[in-house]
């Protein structure tokens, strides 16, 4: 506010190198704090000067200047665009070839922040030729440099399949796959994130990542002590599983399902979300895979997630996953019903339904899950308790199931009467001619007249 930009600008050209470096550092810290200040840096026409003088040999100045560029570029896409327009990308790429690892780190950090915003900026970074140099940076021995280079590659490849393909063509996948074994937790976070951003776009990219032999090493990441390593590992497996049944089959054969289930059981909060979604994706592909999930004892943790978590999207995801597991055949629905999941689902549906917020994801997904499971469920003892609390649209399905099973099974008929189910059915009021009325009539027809009265 006190005109500091116009004062700092001539100091950037001072004769004494220490003054230049300190001025650049000051500008960087100012821009880092606030995006208004970053805009002031851009408006004060400082960036072109910085870029021209970046080709000096002094490595401290290069680090400070890259810090300024990073601080300006991180706030918004417009500021990052301003940086690209003043030609900073070429100089940053030249800095990536410098000997000093600190300079390389600062330059790749700046490039990462620029590429993060959208795919045009990412494309600009790739066009400046940064990707092969970043792959070289990943192979350097300094851990911090590896971390930043992995994070930059992740930011570049997350926007579109073409960018991910560029990163893959530079040979990044093999090196990233090797670094999964590194003991450093933050490095593992970035590497797993980069691999999942590459794998998420298409089947070919996912297959490429799998061919780099990440299984079963990735499963050890699911047992790491760091929460985010577990989350990113689960995200990677999820991105691979969601494309085709063959990839899901691969993951199941490698024992991935068991590892993810354990991981879900041991975490709390948003860390569980990718694991839950992964189970849902695997179960959605085919009934054999869904049976594999059931056999690996997947249902109790999912039910626990429904009960314990409070956030809407996690509950919605758990409900969706359970729906995918149970919707295939009566066997699957029976497994879910036996685990006592249906009352929980119903309670959750009533809860979210009554809170007047029907747009909430949890209520939508719970309803779908309930419907799909109920349509296949023939396990009557589990359906009984639901008769008492269900709202009309769910009641329709429950009664429908009863009407399908009861005519054929005499023992079930007897049980139905003794537990008071028949009485409850009589209490339901349905419009004549509706589906519900038909079901009720079918049930009533199974019994002799005096019992019905």
């Amino acid at each position, binding site marked *: 506010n006190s005109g500091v930009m116009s004062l700092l600008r001539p100091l950037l050209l001072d004769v004494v*190198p*220490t003054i230049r*470096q*300190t001025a650049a*550092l000051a500008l*960087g*810290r100012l821009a880092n704090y606030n995006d208004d200040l970053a805009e002031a840096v851009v408006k004060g026409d400082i960036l072109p000067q910085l870029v021209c003088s970046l080709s000096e*040999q*002094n490595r*401290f100045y290069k*680090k*400070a200047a890259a*810090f300024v560029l990073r601080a300006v570029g991180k706030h918004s896409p417009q500021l990052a665009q301003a940086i690209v327009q003043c030609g900073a990308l070429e100089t940053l790429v030249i800095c990536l070839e410098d000997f000093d690892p*600190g300079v390389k*780190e*600062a330059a790749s*950090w700046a490039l990462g922040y620029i590429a993060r915003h959208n795919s045009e900026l990412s494309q600009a970074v790739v066009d400046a030729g940064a990707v092969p140099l970043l792959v070289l940076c990943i192979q350097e021995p300094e851990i*911090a440099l590896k971390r*930043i280079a992995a994070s930059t590659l992740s930011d570049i490849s997350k926007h579109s399949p073409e960018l991910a393909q560029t990163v893959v063509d530079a040979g990044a996948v093999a090196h990233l796959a090797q670094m999964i074994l590194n003991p450093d937790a933050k490095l593992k976070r970035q590497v797993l994130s980069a691999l999942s951003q590459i794998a998420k776009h298409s089947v070919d990219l996912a297959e490429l990542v799998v061919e780099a032999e990440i299984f*079963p090493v990735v*499963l*050890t990441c*699911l*047992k*790491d*002590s760091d929460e985010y390593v577990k989350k990113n590992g689960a995200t990677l497996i999820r991105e691979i599983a969601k494309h085709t049944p063959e990839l899901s089959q691969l993951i*199941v*054969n*490698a*024992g991935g*399902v*068991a*590892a993810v289930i*354990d991981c879900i059981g041991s975490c709390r909060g948003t860390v569980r979300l990718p694991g839950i979604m992964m189970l849902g994706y695997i179960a959605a592909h085919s009934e*054999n895979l869904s*049976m*594999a999930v059931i*056999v*690996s004892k997947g249902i109790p943790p999912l039910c626990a997630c429904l009960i314990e978590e409070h956030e809407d999207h996690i509950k919605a995801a758990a409900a969706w996953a359970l729906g995918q597991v149970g919707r295939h055949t009566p066997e699957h629905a029976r497994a879910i019903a036996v685990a006592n999941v249906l009352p929980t689902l119903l309670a959750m549906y009533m809860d979210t339904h009554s809170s007047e917020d029907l747009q909430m994801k949890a209520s939508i997904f719970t309803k779908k899950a309930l419907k799909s499971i109920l349509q296949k469920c023939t396990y009557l003892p589990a359906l009984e308790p639901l008769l008492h609390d269900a709202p009309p649209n769910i009641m329709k399905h429950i009664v429908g199931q009863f009407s399908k099973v009861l005519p054929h099974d005499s023992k079930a008929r007897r049980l139905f009467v003794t537990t008071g189910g028949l009485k409850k059915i009589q209490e339901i009021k349905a419009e004549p001619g509706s589906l519900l009325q038909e079901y009720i009539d079918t049930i009533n027809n199974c019994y002799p007249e005096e019992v019905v009265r």
Partner: protein
Amino acid sequence: IQKMWRGYYVRKYIHNYYALKKYLAAISVNNEIVRNELQEYTEMKENEEKRKDLEKKEMERKYQARKMHYLLSTEQIAGIYNSPFRKSPDPMELLLRKSKPLSHTRQEKSSFASELYGWPTCRKPPTFSTAQPLPPIVRQKPQGPFRDTAEVLRQRYKPLEPTFHVAAAINSPLKKEFRREEWRNCIHDNEFLPFSSYHKNEKYDPSIHRSGKYGQEAYGIKHFREVQPKKWVADK
């Protein structure tokens, strides 16, 4: 017959119930194995962590004992760890007895895994290189006829000062005068050949003994020994 065949085919290849059951059983077995291995892995990691923690604590304790060696009890006065009301001295007292006192000139090395990269966040004040690097304060001079460190560093990191000839690009318009003068000063246009090419185009002078009156003699160059093809055995 077709009905039977189709049933058999589907049951064997398309939806083989028993194969499915075996597969699911195999998956459970595999899952158990994977779970066990992961469990072992976590336990191993935890043990390593604990071990590292213990070692770190041990190092800390030993360092503290060495630093506070003066707290050791003497004949006259009991130290704080050796109270007369106690039956036996405190373990710290025993540690103090065992450890060597810290010497004054010992360099401080107590940065356990300190963050070396303060640079990325630029929070710590960086050390800039000044034009004159200060000589280190406490350091033994390396034995031998070495030059002064500051001088050596100045010479090593002297920045490049290219002449105009080198700095400007080869086809730059600024160098027009330069190029004209150079062209003018050239004496001849023969290309400078490296010394190995000096003898490339020389003709070979055959010796007088070998060269016959009408050029070269056939014997001694084209054939050496007398041959009589009619007496050869191998051809037949």
